[in-house]
């Protein structure tokens, strides 16, 4: 039975809550909450992607685009039109949902390689638009001066405040996603992954479900984009390039795509790897990612989430 226990979620939430407090007291990791903000933002994307890839069996190599659309809509509407950031966030998610339907509806009819290539092409097209529509996006130089977030006069103006905001979103989205997985909807998704003809024969509208999950994952990515823009107060296209889409793929594959926890673990590890541990070995970064991805694909098909099972297997022998 696919039950995701409640206790680990509670423990995880607690750990997230006390982390800044702990980090603050240990000089070596004092700046970790800042990295954790990025990890949280990326977790929002990978959670949705994990639902799409691991549970519905559909691949996307274009989610950097949805992340970017959210970020740019927030950036443009707040800086150029002075609109309320929260409203912009919602507008961003709505626009992303529409784009995701327009791209997803024809793409998700395609299978396997075709879908991968379609999403890849879509991602690159959006990236080119970010670079070329200079009047709107500022071109390759990007946009600065994006305001921070405030709620009823409370300013999310420190790393710690923003940390709690982002992880609040992450935990809410996590619980929502877990609920979906454990419901009839999640069952239908796993059924689609196992056998599309059988799922159809049981009344599951396969294409509708695929689009639904695609849109859900895109909307989460858009939310992440808005949070990113308001945290850094700056966006430029380089953040949303093809390599970022691949990085998302690595995060999910590393953690284990058939397990929602895998997305969280993989995202955390890769974020720390790129922002901290590999910081001084920048020229090795791409090689390391390639090696990790290859290693996981060939030797750990279920990612780190599959390791406990493998270890158990050893002891049983």
């Amino acid at each position: 039975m696919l039950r995701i226990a409640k206790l680990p979620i509670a423990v995880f939430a607690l750990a997230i809550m006390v982390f800044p407090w702990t980090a603050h007291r240990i000089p070596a990791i004092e700046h970790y909450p800042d990295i954790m903000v990025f990890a949280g933002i990326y977790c929002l994307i990978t959670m949705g992607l994990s639902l799409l890839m691991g549970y519905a069996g559909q691949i996307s190599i274009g989610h950097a685009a949805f992340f970017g659309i959210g970020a740019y809509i927030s950036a443009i509407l707040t800086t150029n039109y002075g609109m309320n950031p929260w409203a912009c966030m919602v507008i961003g998610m709505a626009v992303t949902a529409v784009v995701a339907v327009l791209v997803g509806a024809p793409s998700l009819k395609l299978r396997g390689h075709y879908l991968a290539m379609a999403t890849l092409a879509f991602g690159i097209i959006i990236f080119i638009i970010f670079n070329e529509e200079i009047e709107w996006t500022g071109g390759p130089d990007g946009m600065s001066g994006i305001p921070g977030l405030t709620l009823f006069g409370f300013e999310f103006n420190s790393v710690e405040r923003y940390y709690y905001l982002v992880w609040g979103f992450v935990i809410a989205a996590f619980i929502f996603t877990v609920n979906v997985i454990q419901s009839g909807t999640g069952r239908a998704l796993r059924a689609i992954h196992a056998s599309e003809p059988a799922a159809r024969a049981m009344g599951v509208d396969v294409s509708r479900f695929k689009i639904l999950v695609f849109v859900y994952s895109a909307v989460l990515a858009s939310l992440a984009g808005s949070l990113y823009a308001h945290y850094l107060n700056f966006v430029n296209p380089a953040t949303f390039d093809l390599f970022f889409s691949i990085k998302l793929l690595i995060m999910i594959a590393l953690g284990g795509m058939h397990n929602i926890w895998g997305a969280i673990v993989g995202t955390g590890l890769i974020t720390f790897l790129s922002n901290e541990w590999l910081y001084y070995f920048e020229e090795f970064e791409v090689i390391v990612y390639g090696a990790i991805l290859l290693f996981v694909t060939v030797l750990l098909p279920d990612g780190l989430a599959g390791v406990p099972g493998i270890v158990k297997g050893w002891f049983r022998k």
Partner: protein
Amino acid sequence: MEENVLELQGVVMTFGGLMALSNLNFNVRRGMIKSIIGPNGAGKTTLFNVITGSFPPTQGTVKFKGQPIQHLKAHKIADRGISRTFQTVELFGNMTVLENVMLGCYTRIRTSFLASGFVLPRSRRKEKRIRETALKILKFIGLAHKFKDLADSLPLGEQKLLEIGRALASEPELICLDEPAAGLNETETHVASSLIRAINAKGITVLLVEHDMKVVMNISDEILVLNYGQKIAEGPPEEIRNSPRVIEAYLGGEA
């Protein structure tokens, strides 16, 4: 009751230049067990695929309870009340026995994406009802003790039963069984055919494709014989058994 649950009129199915079904006409009366037999490649599975909407027929109409359904997608047809099993077992192998049957309930009880994400009390109640229905069906097909096992781990005989159970969970009026006894030993075959009878006794119309003639002759009310996509005979078992055309088709035409 003489009402026809299923009516096929002039159904033609071609693949490229190949004619898989040619001008097929037949009816299935409510409450009967009707079997479709014929040599390999006669078009039996194609016929099932047309009826259940896997692909639309090239020509002709398929009526379910008087309504044309040949243009509908497979999931819509399932919603209307036609369920099926597959010749090559198509279970959700990564899901448990119980979950497989629970998914079968999808046609009758479903929750929206948002409702399931927010775990509204409504969706929780639905989930409970689905679970109870599924457990009842598992008892009926005799797999209740294995509800926690992964579908993949079952022996073939039980997989076939589970597939029937999953189809039953959708509360169909017509159930299409594609070779439920293929690959089964004698005991398992016996279990399967008594299950089919029990399903029929519940008032569900059964359309059966089967190679095992003993099963077919024992449980069918009516038999339809296909050869090269054409109907060559139709009638009660004893009539079919003695039909020269059927014997000829099975023993090899020109000989």
